[in-house]
């Protein structure tokens, strides 16, 4: 059954996918920072309010993934910001997250050498989002 995009249920499903991934477990070894995803509102796409996904990732596992406000996500060690439709492109494999960051379509804040060191882990996390069946508000 499809889950509402960027809802609390989506956060739980995402956490489960990350923790099921052997590839993430290996690639994320040594990671010890929080990651915030800011999903900016796009009222014309029926995503009326910005949201923040706060991820507590540690040593190849997701300890907690929560949906909160954009301000909550902005307090994390690493913050990736993009409008709703860009995140949808990432989750539906229309946009590669690495390319998106190089093109400025996804805006990254945080220590660059660290995030580059964990490119493979971030690619696998993106893969995890694509495995969740999502109900998109602009496709109802």
């Amino acid at each position, binding site marked *: 059954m499809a889950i509402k995009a960027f809802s609390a249920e989506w956060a739980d499903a995402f956490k489960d996918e990350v923790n099921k991934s052997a590839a993430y477990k290996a690639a994320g070894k040594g990671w010890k920072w929080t990651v915030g995803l800011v999903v900016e509102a796009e009222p014309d796409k029926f995503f009326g309010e910005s949201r923040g996904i706060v991820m507590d990732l540690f040593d190849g596992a997701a300890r907690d993934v929560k949906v909160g406000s954009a301000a909550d996500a902005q307090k994390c060690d690493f913050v990736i910001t993009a409008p709703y439709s860009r995140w949808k492109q990432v989750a539906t494999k229309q946009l*590669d997250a690495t*390319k998106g960051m*190089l*093109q400025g379509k996804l805006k990254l804040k945080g220590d660059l*050498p*660290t995030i*580059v*060191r964990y*490119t493979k882990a971030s690619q696998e996390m993106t893969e995890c989002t694509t495995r969740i069946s999502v109900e998109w508000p602009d496709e109802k």
Partner: protein
Amino acid sequence: MARRKVKAHIKKTQVDYADDEPSAFASMLGGLIEANVESRPEKQHDFESLVARVGIWVTDIDEGVTLDFKGGRLTVHNGLKPRRTITIRTDAETVMNLSNLKIGPFGIPVYFDEVGRGVAGKLLRGKLKIDGLLPNVMTLNAVTRIFSVQ
């Protein structure tokens, strides 16, 4: 009483941008090099001594930069500029992998681990092209050391 002036020797990596609005790719590479050199003293020597113009063209996003290393200073240009020493042309994933090459003995990048084999394989298959490689192997190694986050 005699006064002694005490100067603080805090070295700031000099990275600047040639364009008023650096592209996201230019900002990312400039920021990566700046953070890398400042946090890893072993990279300082390469940064101080490297004089070269290095072009990087990312084939799957059709964007590039020119890194103009001027012995302790770096100017990052949007796009490819003339008179480049080396030009690297490859996809976004390989650009990231180049930053993940480990540096082995004598400062030579390691091409026999998983990341290194991937990079070498792309070079052999023509998916990573380096113009000006043969006369500038040492320069490429120095650039790789500055880039490497490993």
